[in-house]
């Protein structure tokens, strides 16, 4: 069980009910609640073009992980998710280029935190679907095994055995299957023109060779089913969603007219609870901007309920079972 965060945390709010924040147990069923941390810093963004204050981002990240894990220090928090012997894959999301991809700064901050937690630099791999996508988002492709590496599936390759679950049959990235023992999922918070939203679960489309096959029917049940592929389900331990700048319409490409500076990171180990929280944030913003809810424009992310159902059990989409912890 996560421990309570230290009493001197700056501020806590729950979005659900005014229960004690970290009594993360539902007394009715004794099923632990899923904790989602929304870590916010109004000064983390230096300009609306997306430039961030790296020091503040690093602190925000560590505050977030400490609050999520409920530990006395960020280092202990990281150690809840990774061990020094792990090979850690950082699954970024770079399809939208520099405007709306996982940032180099966040990725570097995580690399630093992991090393402080004892992970060896050569055991960190920043990874996405294609090296071109990484480069377009500002990353440099690195294959030198003596330091943190960075490359796409075009370099890492795919497994040769087809993996299947429910509606999906795919070849899975060898970086995920063979090279890494743990995956930290690093999506960005954004609207998606087909699937409704793309946050934690959908980011793993980048781990399979045929994501184009899974955009039918608003991504349902494909988004949930891809995450059920055994190596994906077992290795993704933590999601850190970049919401420094987020997008509420027009995604997945970068559409600056529909972006807003949210100046936050969203952290959680339950990808369904994190997606649910992200979805609500996007719906709130759409409402504020006078846009229709996603369901009204044919993009209700119904795959979220599927991900939470008895067959999948990837997490919870029940707001009563999600503790949203906001830290500022």
């Amino acid at each position: 069980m996560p421990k309570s965060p230290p009493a001197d945390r700056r501020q806590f709010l729950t979005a659900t009910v005014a229960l004690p924040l970290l009594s993360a147990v539902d007394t009715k069923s004794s099923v632990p609640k899923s904790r989602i941390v929304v870590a916010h810093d109004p000064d983390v963004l230096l300009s609306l073009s997306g430039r961030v204050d790296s020091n503040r981002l690093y602190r925000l990240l560590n505050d977030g992980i400490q609050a999520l894990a409920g530990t006395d220090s960020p280092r202990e928090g990281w150690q809840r998710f990774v061990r020094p012997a792990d090979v850690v894959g950082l699954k970024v999301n770079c399809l939208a280029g520099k405007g709306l991809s996982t940032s180099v700064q966040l990725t570097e901050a995580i690399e630093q935190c992991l090393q402080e937690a004892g992970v060896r630099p050569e055991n960190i791999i920043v990874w996405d679907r294609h090296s071109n996508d990484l480069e377009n988002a500002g990353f440099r492709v690195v294959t030198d095994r003596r330091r943190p590496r960075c490359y796409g599936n075009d370099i890492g390759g795919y497994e040769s055995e087809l993996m299947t679950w429910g509606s999906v049959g795919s070849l899975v990235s060898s970086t995920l299957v063979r090279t890494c023992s743990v995956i930290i999922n690093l999506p960005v918070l954004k609207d998606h023109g087909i699937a409704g939203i793309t946050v934690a679960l959908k980011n793993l489309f980048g781990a399979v060779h045929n994501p184009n096959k899974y955009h039918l029917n608003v991504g349902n049940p494909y988004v949930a089913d891809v995450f059920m592929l055994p190596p994906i389900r077992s290795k993704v331990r933590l999601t850190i969603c970049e919401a420094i700048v987020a997008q509420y319409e027009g995604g997945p490409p970068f559409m600056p007219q529909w972006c807003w500076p949210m100046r936050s990171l969203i952290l959680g180990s339950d990808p369904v609870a994190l997606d649910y929280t992200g979805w609500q944030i996007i719906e709130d913003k759409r409402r504020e901007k006078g846009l229709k809810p996603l369901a009204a424009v044919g993009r209700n992310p119904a795959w979220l309920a599927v991900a939470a159902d008895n067959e999948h059990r990837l997490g919870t989409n029940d707001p009563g079972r999600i503790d949203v912890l906001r830290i500022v």
Partner: protein
Amino acid sequence: MPGRELHSEINRRTFVCSAALPALCAGVAFAASSSRREAQYYEKLPNQKIRCKLCPRECVIDDRERGYCGVRENEKGTYYTLVHSRPCSVHVDPIEKKPLFHFYPGTLAFSLATAGCNVNCKFCQNWEISQARPEQVRSAEMTPNQVAALARENECVSIAYTYSEPVVFYEYVYDTAVAGKAQGVKSVVISNGYIQDEPLRRLCGQVEAIKIDLKAFSEKFYREVVNGELKPVLQSLVTIQKQKTWLEIVYLVIPTLNDSDQELRALSQWIQRELGPDVPIHFTRFHPQYLLKNLPVTPLATLERAKKIADAEGLHYAYIGNVPGHPAENTYCPRCHEPVVERTAFMIRKTSLRNGTCAKCAAPIAGRWNKG
């Protein structure tokens, strides 16, 4: 050892530049990177989106995204094909392997495919290329003129666009068919028929024969097993027949899924009514693979039942496929019932045709035949 690139199809099919066919290799380079060309049949939408109008799926695609087939990409509101002149599988096959039984029997077809497909059949035998993206398979760079020249060099009567789905490499098919025509090589297309009417009509003007894989005669099957629709495929069959492009149909008979008497009879009646009795239909044997491994190989009795139903409905040329040595691999004269083309697997054993007529009773045998 990390995972491999997806190029097993090339290993399996003996790629054109492999040791097995070194003579084909001259002047062909492996494609290093994507060679984009603007796609045909799409419309521009606001916010740099596009709508593809090549197949009935009509994918609406955002900037930097691809359609369902995975081989067409939107870049800033312009749609590109990524597979023009990039075949990933090239082989010289007997035309009987397509199968096209009424199209210059005993000749060779220079056969090629690119990555990609606009459906996702659970029983696909070529999923390693059809369900891959172009950058995930090893490809050669081969222009339409080079293909036509290689086909001639290898004494192929035709170029066959096959293995994956030619609809998704439409522009390459079209340009190569034009280049082939100019060099005296015919073109044949092996397709699922899931294409819009306008591009299909235009293609019919350039190719001599089309074989359609009709996967079932029910929308349910198309929805659940193919991820497509039946209706547009039936429309394509009618269009091809009206355009007078030679047409044959393959129906893969899958135990319990598309093999009921009722479905087979409805299919045969539809062919008789809408296309006429002279369109050959091949009932072929299913082998479990890809995502459909829980069903048995089609029993011979099922295939024979399917043929019997088609015969009873008056279809002149119903074949049994993937059963080498079966008498239903032969073509029989619909009038005197004598064999006019005798086959074993892809081999022609004997031909008893005279200028496209039965050598015995002179009844015309539908098809495109060699002279003499």
